[in-house]
């Protein structure tokens, strides 16, 4: 039954947000963001979205203790048909991780050019996924959020849920250049927000959009979300950004595996939701992963 209290912030969260944004305003006092990051709009967005995060998606965060007080390239699997996972990870790193930070999410080129949405995402901290942009932010002490699967991660048919797509390597070259550790993150539950999906790849290409999912539901279902934060992966001292592809791939594969391990733990411990679909998928993923390793 709908509990109206769930639409409001709890007094603890209210207090936490006020205190948190006071600290962040102090942190960003002398920083002017060239993409237009707006701390006031960010606070408003968190106030509106936190009840959704707490009561609709019932987000749990595991491994928050793995986050240390320095910049990271937070690397996550990408799932669901719209990038709600990015929003939930960003809120988790503000509200449930210490020290809190605004994660600067890398977004698709397609999103950056959209009217209203491009401006809104920029104001709430997202930026175009570009090496120069990432480097600039890391130099300014920011942590960034990348989805190396790209749009391939979220544009999956139901039969491909929880199958990691091939990771692109660009993010790792930035990590090598800036000597910034990787923090692996895995989101469990976002795939089931849209449980039945079919992708019109040809039509998407015709319309020049990255993906065109046909879903049974137009609004994301309240699938319970678990966010797993793994141990940070240090950057090898001896390796530079101009390393050979094969060496880069080896390290990226190691990151992929870390996220897969988090995924297996997550799939075992997930809360019940649309079980007839989820259980066979979980079993398949675990079996496949065991087979490969």
């Amino acid at each position, binding site marked *: 039954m709908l509990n109206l209290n769930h639409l409001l912030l709890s007094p603890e969260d209210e207090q936490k947000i006020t205190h948190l944004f006071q600290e962040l305003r102090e942190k960003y006092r002398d920083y002017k963001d*060239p993409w*237009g990051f707006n701390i006031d709009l960010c606070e408003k967005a968190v106030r509106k979205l936190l009840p959704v995060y707490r009561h609709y998606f019932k987000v749990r965060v595991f491994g928050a203790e793995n986050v240390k007080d320095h910049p990271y390239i937070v690397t996550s699997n990408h799932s669901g048909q719209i990038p709600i996972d990015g929003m939930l990870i960003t809120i988790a790193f503000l509200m449930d991780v210490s020290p809190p930070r605004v994660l600067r999410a890398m977004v698709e*080129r397609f999103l950056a*050019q959209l*009217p209203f949405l*491009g401006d809104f995402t920029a104001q709430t901290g997202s930026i175009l996924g570009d090496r120069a942009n990432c480097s600039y932010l890391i130099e300014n002490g920011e942590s960034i959020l990348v989805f190396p699967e790209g749009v391939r991660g979220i544009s999956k048919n139901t039969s491909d849920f929880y199958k990691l797509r091939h990771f692109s390597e660009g993010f790792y070259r930035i990590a090598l250049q800036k000597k910034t550790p990787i923090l692996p993150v895995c989101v469990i539950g976002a795939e089931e927000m849209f449980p039945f999906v079919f992708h019109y790849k040809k039509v998407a290409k015709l319309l020049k959009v990255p993906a065109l999912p046909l879903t049974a539901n137009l609004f994301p279902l309240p699938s319970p979300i678990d966010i797993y934060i793994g141990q940070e992966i240090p950057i090898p001292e001896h390796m530079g950004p101009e390393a050979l592809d094969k060496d880069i791939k080896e390290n990226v594969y190691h990151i992929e595996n870390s996220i897969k391990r988090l995924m297996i733990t997550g799939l075992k411990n997930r809360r019940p939701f649309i079980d007839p679909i989820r259980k066979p998928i979980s079993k398949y993923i675990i079996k496949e992963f065991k087979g490969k390793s």
Partner: protein
Amino acid sequence: MSSPKKILIIGIAGGLAQMTARLILTENPEWEIIGIDSRNVVNVPPLKNLTAINLKYSRGNFENLFRTHHFDVVYHLGRISHSSNEQNVLAKRIDLSVMGTNRILELCERSGIKKVIILSTFHVYGALSDNSIFLTEDAPLRASIRHPELRDVIEMDQICTNWMWKNQKSISTVVLRPCNIIGTQIQNAMTRFLSGTIALSPMDYNPFFQFIHEFDMAHILYKSLDTVPTGTYNVAGNDFISLREALNVVGTKSIPFPMILAGGMNEVLKKLSINVPDYLLDYLKFSCLISNNELKKHLGPNFLRFSIKEALELIKLR
């Protein structure tokens, strides 16, 4: 500064060229400047040691000028404005900006000029949705991807930079790519947009801009004589400002407008000849911020006199 110099300024009818000439002669009263322009030069202020001549630099008598005077320095500030898309203007632009520039450079090489300072523009980079932040001088010149009518702007820049490296041992050449120059004496599309009675302000985008006051730009052109070595340099301050904030600072009444409709509306306005240049619409959607790190190496970390807000406030005097 060193021994008296003879300077040729191409494009003397422009406000920026006149400010630069005044600055040079104030600092070095014994120097001599010949200013030429294909436009009317009657409004060029009468300054001691400044001679203004109405002359097309694609004509034969332009060559005579180099033979008669032995110039030490050439300022090429005479690029034809790219703010009109009309076909006859486009042909004129290619004739003067591309063919003319080729001719100027050829004459500079033949006449043993020691320093050439060329004014290009940051518009060569183009305002694209996937622009990186703070474009360096090495960034690809992509303006003509969306606007082929800007090819003269890019071609001129490329002719100059190629020529610069080819002749680097004998001629010191500086190619400047300034951000939006604004001021009361300058007549460019951005100054007109900001200082009009009303301005259409995009409601669905809010790009960032860099502005430089015309006085600061004239000062950099002057400093380029001795302080800036051969190379291509972006010219911008350390600061940037969003379009909405800029309009607020200037105090222009802005009318929110969805950019999604701007292209269609501009087509209608073209028929009435009151359109804004097509390329400028992109700048109202996407940021094109440039890095000033190269210029800082020679002019110091804070080389501008006016901050962005001061520069904007000064155009209210227009």
